């Protein structure tokens, strides 16, 4: 797997909400097999950037390219089927459905009643459940799970989606150390298989442990991108991050 | 002349609708509770007035006070004993709506059993129409209706913009936790919203009783108007609901110039339908998240 293969390209992206410039001329590349973390102070536009990629928002100007083709302006469900998946900061699990059903429905994208490849699906579901430690909870409703389990279910859904690009919005926040390690291990495992992962994260420890690359966003502008070492050592960025500017 | 007559009728209907809609909009906009029993509040107030005025002959001040008390107690009790409990459990939109609906059905039928299903009217000297011009009949009651509506809205405006309570009420819809800043709790604010929202329908109920009359199933129509006006005017905007109520009242009457009366209710809903399809935010409302 070539690690220099660029799967997602964002070019000169701008998003304006009736006067509020949420995203300002952002250009960013996400290569295969690389974990990129998006950091920045609150309100910097990180989630907005995700929404612009997934089609939940349409850019004012600029473009997003996936596997070479332009995707901005395409409906979210179509973009999802092209291989881009995301999690939400507030999880948005299918609460009244069971753990198993949450995963099944993601795998069943296009079909209506009859499923082809049932056995393959069942095996894959079992595998995902085991990897995320949810195998004993498969018949539980999502709303009845514990906090960490819900976080893992959110990850399980994206694992089931067979997406090549994972956009994770604060996926590990609030996890206890043991769960966190398991989480990191899983992400590394999938990145090694060639999945491109982009994470929004506030917790700097997480950023250091997880990221291959870091992109720093502030007030809608991409201020810097590079290796985590470079970015995190920069005093100017630290000042912005911790709010020393007006 | 027909058009002018229809305009006057429309003004009267519109003013009443504006009051009704404002009450519902206040409650819904501020507590987010789909108070499907708002129509029941109206009916209770109307029949309470009727009972005290026409049956017990206690004079209109006592009758009015009774109506106000009945409406207020009904609204607040519903909030405290039904909605609050449901919201503590899991309070999904549907559960609250279904419970509200159930209450409305019970009230409608209890009133039907107590007062009969027919139309019940109260005639007062002010209800008799005067021929202002050839073919133009207006009752002095119209003036009372309009004055009443204006006073109510002025008071409401004052309450909402000049008092702590009012500001807190407006904050409740946006962010319930802000309320604690004012030393109030969301529960107490909710009670106030229901108190004021329920009282707002009382003038409309009394005036309807003295003009077109009451019957138990009018709660349906009241609900429909409240809902339609709140949506067309924009959720969260009292001004919008009031204006929309006026608009719907006028439309309901003016359309009689061109179509049969059986279709006038449908006109209200065509307007509502079109707004939902093309401008769900209503005239003044905030953007709707789907």
């Amino acid at each position, binding site marked *: 797997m070539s690690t220099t293969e660029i799967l997602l390209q964002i070019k000169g992206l701008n998003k304006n909400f009736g006067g509020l410039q949420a995203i300002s001329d952002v250009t960013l590349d996400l290569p295969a097999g690389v974990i990129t973390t998006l950091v920045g102070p609150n309100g910097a536009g990180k989630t907005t950037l995700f929404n612009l990629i997934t089609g939940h928002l349409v850019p004012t100007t600029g473009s997003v390219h996936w596997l070479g083709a332009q995707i901005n302006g395409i409906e979210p469900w179509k973009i999802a089927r092209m291989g881009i998946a995301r999690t939400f900061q507030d999880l948005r699990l299918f609460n009244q459905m069971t753990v198993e059903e949450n995963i099944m429905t993601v795998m069943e994208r296009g079909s209506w009643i009859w499923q082809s490849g049932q056995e393959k699906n069942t095996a894959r579901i079992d595998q995902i459940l085991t990897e995320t430690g949810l195998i004993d909870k498969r018949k539980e409703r999502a709303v009845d799970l514990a906090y960490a389990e819900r976080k893992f279910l959110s990850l399980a859904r994206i694992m089931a989606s067979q997406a090549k690009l994972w956009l994770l919005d604060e996926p590990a926040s609030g996890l206890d150390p043991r769960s966190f390690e398991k989480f990191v291990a899983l992400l590394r495992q999938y990145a090694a298989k060639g999945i491109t992962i982009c994470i929004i994260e506030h917790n700097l420890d997480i950023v250091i442990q997880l990221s291959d690359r870091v992109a720093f966003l502030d007030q809608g502008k991409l201020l810097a991108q590079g290796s985590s070492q470079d970015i995190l050592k920069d005093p100017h960025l630290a000042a912005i991050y911790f709010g020393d500017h007006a | 002349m027909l058009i002018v007559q229809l305009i006057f009728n429309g003004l009267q209907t519109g003013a009443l609708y504006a009051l009704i809609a404002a009450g519902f909009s206040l409650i819904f906009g501020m507590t987010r509770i789909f108070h499907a029993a708002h129509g029941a509040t109206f009916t209770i107030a109307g029949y309470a007035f009727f009972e005290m005025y026409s049956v017990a002959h206690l004079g209109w001040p006592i009758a009015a006070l009774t109506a106000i008390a009945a409406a207020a107690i009904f609204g607040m009790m519903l909030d405290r004993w039904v909605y609050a409990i*449901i919201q503590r459990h899991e309070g999904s939109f549907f559960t609250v709506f279904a419970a509200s609906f159930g209450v409305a059905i019970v009230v409608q039928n209890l009133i039907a059993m107590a007062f009969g299903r027919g139309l019940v009217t109260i005639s007062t000297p002010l209800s008799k129409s005067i021929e202002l011009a050839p073919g133009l009949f207006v009752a002095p009651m119209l003036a009372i209706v309009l004055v009443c509506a204006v006073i109510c809205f002025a008071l409401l405006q004052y309450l909402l913009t000049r008092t702590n309570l009012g500001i807190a009420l407006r904050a409740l819809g946006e962010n319930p936790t802000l309320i604690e800043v004012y030393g109030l709790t969301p529960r107490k604010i909710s009670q106030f919203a229901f108190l004021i929202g329920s009282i707002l329908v009382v003038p409309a109920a009394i005036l309807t009783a003295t003009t077109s009359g009451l019957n138990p199933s009018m709660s349906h129509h009241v609900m429909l108007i409240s809902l339609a006006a709140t949506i067309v005017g924009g959720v969260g905007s009292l001004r919008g609901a009031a204006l929309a109520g006026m608009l719907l009242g006028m439309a309901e009457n003016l359309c009689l110039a061109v179509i049969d009366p059986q279709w006038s209710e449908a006109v209200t809903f065509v307007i509502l339908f079109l707004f939902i399809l093309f401008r769900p935010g209503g005239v003044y409302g905030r953007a709707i998240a789907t």
Partner: protein
Amino acid sequence: MIAYLQNIAVLFCVNGILALTLNFIMGYAGIYSLAHTIFFGIGAYTAAYLALNVTDSLPISMLAAFSLSAVVSMALALPALRVRGEYFVAASLGLQVIGVTIFAEWKSVTGGLGGMIGIPRPKLFGYVFNDDTAFLILSVVVLLAVLGILSLLVRGSFGRSLMAIRDSESAAQAYGKHVNAVKTLSVAISSGLAAIAGVLYTFYMSFINVEGFTLETSILLMAMVIIGGTGTLLGPVAGAALLMTLPAALTYLPFLPPGELGAIQQIVYGAAMVLLMIFRPGGLVGGRSKEKSA
């Protein structure tokens, strides 16, 4: 006695189908419609019109009723795609009111306020269902068929897509669900099958008018679904059974004034709705938790 029971049984099948189909969009798709009766009516009037003017063939009536109802249901689907919850309830209310007015005023097709009379029994492969018992069997078969179809849909991937959309539309979209198509299809299926109930009703009663398709009826249907329990397949059927036996049960209580039985009946199910929502939101069958998956 037998005739009386048969009568109730047929009407139970009709109401059962209506409750099942309403629950399909309410409990599984989260689309709260007060206009369900209109589709019942469309089916009924279509069958009546065909039987009186064209043919008494059962399959043709059912096909025509289903198709017409599914097409008209686009009027309901459109707002369902744009708004949720309270807004949609209002839109469905509007459709209900407009529908009733059309039923009452379009005299040439629906017979206006007087309705349509003298509708013959239907014919299937040459057999005419004149016998009441035969008709009962037909009704039960249709009820079971509808139950089967909905069960298949709900337990399969379509049902999961519906519930995913109900639980979080934005997440469903993010995972590739074509929300608009799924919602529209579910509304079409629900309305089409409700029309089938209308076909049965028309042929059984041999007389229909607008009184059977009013807002009151829509409310009663909603009560059946709510009381029986949304989100379970059998809940609405239980609700239908309960609310149908209620009037009969009330006549056995001697202390109730006979003239007021209708009102008392409504008070009972109104109160039931309130109490259930407070103590048991899942309905009688559903239990404490709301909207359990099938």
